């Protein structure tokens, strides 16, 4: 257990293992997304009231779920890097921010596209939309803070503190905005008690949420690999990798 934990801190090991994970995770993710989209968009029944426009939930809800989870992943990675001074946790945290911002943006965009035919407006100042917007600002704040530092080690630490502060604040922001005004429908998927969404629509939704988590993991690993190479550009193993990669090609 502990040797695994220590190995996580080693850039060459993480680079190697993420490469071999991606080799099978990336194709699986793409296939799962294609299957889920086909299932959700073509083979589920249209909604009684909303017709076909509801089908955007198969992108909207997974994006929103993963965007929220992504902030917690970022903050936990930040905490790990502050507490155990683990360099690779820094890299993970830095990789999360732009991806999380992109997922949040997708959630907001698909929400707006769904809102136009359903509510008659692209944008409504409703509680959940507003808190997702705040989440986007929090992500972009972390990106902006990282870019402002010249010393990237200090940048990672500062971003870790900021994301921890944000993590404490997210429930407060969420609750206060919720109290402020709510137009969005209440949560229709509950783990305990009955869901108000039919299971024929629910299974593809769960499928898509799982696929989006896998997509997030793939994007994060790809991002981390680039960051590792950039940070370790002066080390021997990266030079060997670059030189060996040129002569041996994709053989390894």
């Amino acid at each position, binding site marked *: 257990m502990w040797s695994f934990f220590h190995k996580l801190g080693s850039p060459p090991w993480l680079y190697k293992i993420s490469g071999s994970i991606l080799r099978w995770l990336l194709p699986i993710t793409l296939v799962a997304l294609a299957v889920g989209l086909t299932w959700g968009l073509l083979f589920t029944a249209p909604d009684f009231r909303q017709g076909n426009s509801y089908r955007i939930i198969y992108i909207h809800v997974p994006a929103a779920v993963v965007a929220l989870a992504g902030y917690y992943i970022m903050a936990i990675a930040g905490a790990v890097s502050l507490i155990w001074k683990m360099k690779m946790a820094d890299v993970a945290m830095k990789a999360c921010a732009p991806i999380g911002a992109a997922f949040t943006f997708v959630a907001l965009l698909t929400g707006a596209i769904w809102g136009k035919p359903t509510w008659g407006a692209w944008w409504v100042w409703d509680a959940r939309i507003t808190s997702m917007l705040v989440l986007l600002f929090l992500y972009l704040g972390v990106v902006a803070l990282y870019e402002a530092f010249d010393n990237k080690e200090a940048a990672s*630490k500062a971003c870790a503190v*900021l994301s921890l502060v944000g993590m404490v604040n997210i429930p407060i922001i969420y609750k206060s905005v919720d109290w402020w005004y709510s137009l969005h429908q209440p949560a229709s998927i509950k783990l305990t008690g009955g869901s108000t969404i039919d299971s024929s629509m629910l299974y593809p939704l769960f499928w898509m949420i799982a696929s989006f988590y896998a997509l997030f993991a793939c994007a994060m690993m790809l991002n981390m690999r680039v960051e590792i190479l950039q940070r370790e550009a002066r080390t021997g193993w990266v030079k060997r990798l670059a030189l060996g990669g040129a002569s041996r090609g994709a053989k390894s």
Partner: protein
Amino acid sequence: MSASASQLTTAQFCARLLRRQLVLAVRRPVEIGNPILFFAMVVALFPLGLGPAPGQLSGFAPGVLWIIALLSNLLTSDAVFRGDFDDGNLEQLLIAPQPLYLSVLAYIGAHWIITGLLLALVSPLFAVMLNLPAQAIWVLVGSLLLGTGTLSLLGCIGAALTVGLKRGGMLISLLILPLYMPVLIFGSAAVKAAVLGNPAGPYLAILGGMLCLAVALAPFAVAAGLRISIDA
């Protein structure tokens, strides 16, 4: 100073820090006057932009007054640690034997007295200019007293994280404004409730709760931010 820093009790140390910050501010009265002047000027912008009808103004007044208080707090928080960072005092503070949590709290307290407390005390004047009903004015003062404390604590987190950067001014707004939103929601809701004749107590209680949470946690983040900025 007659005694060296290591001979002072923590309480004495923090009291001296607080007094030093206040004396520094009083020696440069413009620094104290600027936020209030800013407040007055922005108050004047709103009737120009939104129209001077008294009935309409009193509807906007709670939100407008709270947004201006928030902005003037934000603009002043950038400077809290900057002078001491530039002349090296901050490094002395970090290596002092007294806990950084408390000395940071003294800095934040001084910032709150110079901006939040003063703004809360002069806010009735601007409330009258924006036609806020009389029964809401005391609630406005109370909500500003409680809310600006939280704003100062959060603003200093941003100040600590960006103090080492040359171009921190705009960045601090990006970092801190999202965190300010809950305070804005409950602060303006308290004043709105008072305008409508509803009890404002619950909102003030929530503002007080936020202040307690911020006092308990924010100085840790500020202290961590200062250590990072000094190392960078």
